[in-house]
């Protein structure tokens, strides 16, 4: 009985720790944006890092990822999902960035020339 109670208590502590950390990370990210302490690429990287940390916190404390007996199938599916995710998001951004780079940054006449030349393509 006491063992059961202890288990329940540690579980509650887990949820509370996850909740407090998540609130703190959310408020930090918000403060970083509103205070304008950092700008540009640094700001994006700081926000990205804060989001990733919060995701890991919630995966561990709320979704209990990795908290299963072996073989850890949930974790395996999770990582295969991550691979697909990186390919979709990374791939899209990579391709579209190069498309922008090739199309948008030339002077208007040059773009017109290129479009005339490749008309019907």
């Amino acid at each position: 009985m006491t063992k059961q109670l202890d288990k329940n208590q540690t579980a509650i502590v887990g949820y509370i720790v996850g909740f407090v950390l998540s609130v703190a990370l959310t408020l930090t990210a918000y403060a970083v944006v509103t205070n304008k302490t950092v700008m540009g690429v640094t700001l994006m990287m700081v926000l990205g890092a804060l989001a990733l940390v919060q995701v890991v916190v919630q995966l561990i404390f709320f979704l209990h990822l990795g908290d299963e007996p072996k073989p850890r199938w949930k974790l395996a599916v999770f990582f295969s999902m991550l691979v697909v995710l990186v390919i979709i998001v990374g791939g899209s951004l990579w391709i579209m960035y190069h498309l922008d780079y090739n199309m948008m940054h030339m002077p208007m006449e040059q773009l017109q020339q290129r479009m005339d030349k490749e008309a019907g393509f």
Partner: protein
Amino acid sequence: MTKLLKKATEVEALEDKTHFGFWVYLMTDCILFASLFATYVVLRGNTASGPSGHELFDLPMVLVETLILLTSSFACGLAMLALKRGDKRQLVGWLAATYVLGVAFLVIELNEFAVLVTEGHGWQQSAFLSAFFTLVGTHGVHITIGLLWLLVLVCVLFKRGFSDKLRRQFVLFSLFWHFLDVIWIFIFTIVYLMGAA
């Protein structure tokens, strides 16, 4: 005794299977959201001379919305602990909190959409807004489905009481709800914070 033990292990095996099956669904849902995020990030600059996120987003309101959803997720976690103890009163109490906070989140989101549309910044104005409404709207649809699911589960609980099946359903619902909060972290960061910065 051995018969009982056998039944217990059978129930446990079934529990593991449904749990794993639902987890696989959640992971494919992640991929759906990943493609919507990729679309949004690619199109976020294409405002067609219309307003960008910087001019449109009401950050303090979004922060409140975020904290509400986070608290809802937390309440759902506490409900699962009550479920494990078999404490019906606490379970229903925490689920009610989950539900009310979820509805509050949805109301704030729909209000934001309504304001944008009535001011003429609907999904037809620019590629940026189309991508925005698709991404945030898809999350909103998930929340709506989750709220309906929770309502049905609680009705069944009141009508028929606890069963192994219902217990399993509650656990799956909590996975779904926590998962939606994880997706929201990305929406909050990528769409709102990075958009308003």
